[in-house]
């Protein structure tokens, strides 16, 4: 019986871990296009046609509609329309490498909308049977500095090329020649940040399930057409590329990057795992934070439930209950009065039962103070699966370890610690890693307002401001 309980506990903890780290629903997809938001829902298209829809960015299910079949689509919103690119190919081992990249428009991505109607697809690039290019795997990019639209395409079979498109029609700009910008990548796409153009591509073995070595790399250039050079100075046309994300512990084969900018300083990337061991080794949609480290994009970690110090970036103090500090009764051992030969004693940390009796009943204010690893400073974050999620994450309750005392937002845009969890939106927190590796902590009840240090020792809620350390926190696992 004891063993059975242990097994159930293990299974439950595995389930919590699983649900905290991967998109829920039926997120089965290969080569997911960049996530698009349309009328409050999220969409991504995949190889073979169709795609996924999500109401909240966390639970994904089949339902998106993309005609044309073919491989590796991408999407971009221009004005009030969506341009979708995909490729028709007979390529691969069984055939040649003749490919066609096509684009088409739609006013909406919602297949139930009366406005849902794709325009006729038009070819914008192609490759011949045995050319040093495989015209598939389209990646759409609008240069924010010029408003010019580009599409990169190509695979491991030769060069990656880019074609300039007319952003009004989605057609190739007449008279332009598609330059070669990289070699031996798949699923390329471009992004722009701080004066740099980044070309991301997937290297490694595709489509081999759990043995796929797919990984996403990047090079950068000051010019939209390259040369795109990695951190070692290697041109991507010579195979260069700095790692953005590769395999994880239980998921392998990261491929087909798409950037999703949620807010200033909050960026996420969509891609697929070729195989998720927790999900029948299927190819699944993945969403991770994008970090920017020394001017390079790096894949962030999925946030994990656990017990943490929540440390303010403003001062480095720790979020805590505003209760009397209880001293530990361990004799002070000043070095000048200590017998150097006396045996060493290992003392325990202060325990919850040592102090909880001194805490008031009911609501207790939250405060920020010197980290001392005391019970009033240790916060356990637990996923609340029934609360839904957001792009790339689920909601958490944040409680003092071993208690039901729960961090809560208040109606007047402040924070407090409620005596018990009540399941309200004010007690559900969204944990998102910012591009600098810190975290923002936002209650479900007041989107846009985040946990903030309004003074070194005073937490409250304020509008998210990526440029202020007041809004940022670090989670230090305990």
């Amino acid at each position, binding site marked *: 019986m004891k063993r059975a309980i242990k097994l159930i506990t293990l299974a439950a903890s595995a389930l919590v871990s699983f649900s905290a780290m991967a998109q829920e629903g039926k997120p089965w997809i290969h080569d997911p296009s960049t996530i698009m938001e349309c009328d409050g829902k999220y969409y991504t298209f995949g190889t073979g046609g169709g795609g996924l829809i999500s109401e909240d960015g966390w639970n994904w299910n089949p339902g998106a509609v993309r005609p044309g079949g073919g491989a590796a689509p991408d999407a971009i919103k221009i004005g009030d329309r969506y341009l979708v690119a995909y490729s028709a190919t007979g390529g691969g081992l069984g055939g040649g490498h003749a490919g066609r990249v096509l684009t088409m428009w739609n006013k909406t991505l919602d297949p139930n909308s009366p406005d849902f109607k794709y325009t006729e697809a038009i070819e914008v690039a192609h490759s011949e049977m045995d050319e040093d290019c495989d015209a598939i795997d389209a990646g759409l990019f609008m240069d924010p500095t010029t408003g010019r639209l580009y599409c990169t395409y190509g695979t491991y079979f030769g060069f990656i090329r880019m074609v300039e498109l007319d952003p009004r029609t989605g057609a190739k700009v007449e008279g332009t020649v598609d330059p070669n910008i990289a070699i031996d990548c798949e699923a390329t796409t471009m992004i722009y940040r701080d004066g740099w153009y980044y070309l991301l591509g997937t290297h490694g073995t595709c489509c081999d399930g759990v043995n796929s070595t797919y990984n996403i790399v990047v090079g950068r250039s000051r010019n939209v057409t390259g040369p795109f050079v990695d951190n070692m100075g290697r041109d991507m046309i010579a195979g260069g590329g700095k790692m953005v994300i590769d395999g994880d512990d239980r998921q392998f084969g990261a491929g087909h990057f798409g950037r999703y900018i949620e807010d200033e300083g909050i960026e996420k990337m969509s891609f697929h795992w070729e195989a998720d061991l927790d999900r029948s080794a299927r190819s699944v949609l993945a969403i991770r934070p994008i970090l920017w480290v020394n001017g390079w994009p790096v894949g962030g970690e999925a946030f994990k439930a656990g017990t943490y110090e929540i440390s303010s970036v403003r001062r480095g103090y720790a979020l805590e209950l505003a209760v009397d500090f209880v001293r530990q009764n361990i004799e002070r051992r000043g070095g000048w009065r200590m017998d150097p030969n006396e045996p060493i004693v290992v003392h325990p940390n202060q325990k919850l039962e040592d102090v909880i009796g001194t805490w008031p009943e009911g609501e207790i204010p939250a405060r920020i103070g010197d980290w001392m690893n005391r019970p009033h400073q240790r916060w356990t974050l637990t996923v609340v699966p029934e609360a839904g999620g957001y792009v790339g994450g689920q909601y958490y309750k944040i409680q003092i370890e071993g208690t039901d005392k729960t961090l809560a937002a208040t109606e007047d845009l402040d924070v407090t610690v409620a005596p018990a969890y009540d399941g309200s939106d004010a007690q559900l927190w969204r944990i998102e890693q910012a591009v600098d590796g810190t975290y923002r902590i936002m209650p479900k009840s007041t989107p846009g307002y985040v946990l903030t240090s*309004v*003074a*070194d020792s005073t937490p409250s809620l304020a509008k998210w401001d990526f440029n202020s350390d007041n809004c940022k926190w670090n989670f230090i696992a305990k």
Partner: protein
Amino acid sequence: MKHLFRTLVLVAALAAAASFTADAKKKKTDLIEKYPALAPYFSTPAEAAVQPDELGFIRRWVLLEPISKPNRTNTVFVDSYIRENLDNGWNKGDFKVPADGDKVTMQVEYQKPVDMTAGRPMWGVEPETEMKKVKLTWHALDSKLFNVKLYRYAVGTETGRYGAIFRAVTVIDVPEDIENVRLAVGSNSASMWWIDGEEALILSGDRRMVMDDGASKRLTLKKGRHVITGAVINGPGMSDFCVRFIDENGNPVHNYNIVK
């Protein structure tokens, strides 16, 4: 005629004497002249109202001479201690804003002088204390610094050094409602602050003076006059505080006057 002359001389003499007495009284109440050690830190307030300084700090305060409260360490200043010792109703009910020179009589805990002839007392040996009736004076001062140096105030006025509770009062005139501001305080050591008698914030523990260490909840400073009161407690070491209002973005609030 002779009588008239004598009368005029007498009136002149009385006027001169009155003037001399007023000057003497004024001189007597000029704390800075009496205690030159205060001069680097404080000045005598002018009659005209002033505004907060460039960073929004309030430099004009009426300070009570230190209330003796011996503590060998600042680590005892937990929240409940602060409430018990600083929030005893002194600034509520029929509290009147003290004027310069006002006096208050109270019983205080007083530490007897430590006998050092046999060397420094052993650590952990608590010095003896006794209750003592004292008369303390309020002094109106402008701080020359953004932070009000309580230690220098106590030492400079020869009224204390360590182990004390300081009380501070200031009055502000707000010309129009100012919404969504916070009272932001730093203090050495722990402190408690009120606006119009309502608790604004507590800074507990062994505090260092850090600008914007703690802040009140959002509040609206309504048009009109408001009284800000604070109490700072310190065991050994330096003692000071700094107070300002900050807006939603943490920027200083300036648009109000601090009256004498």
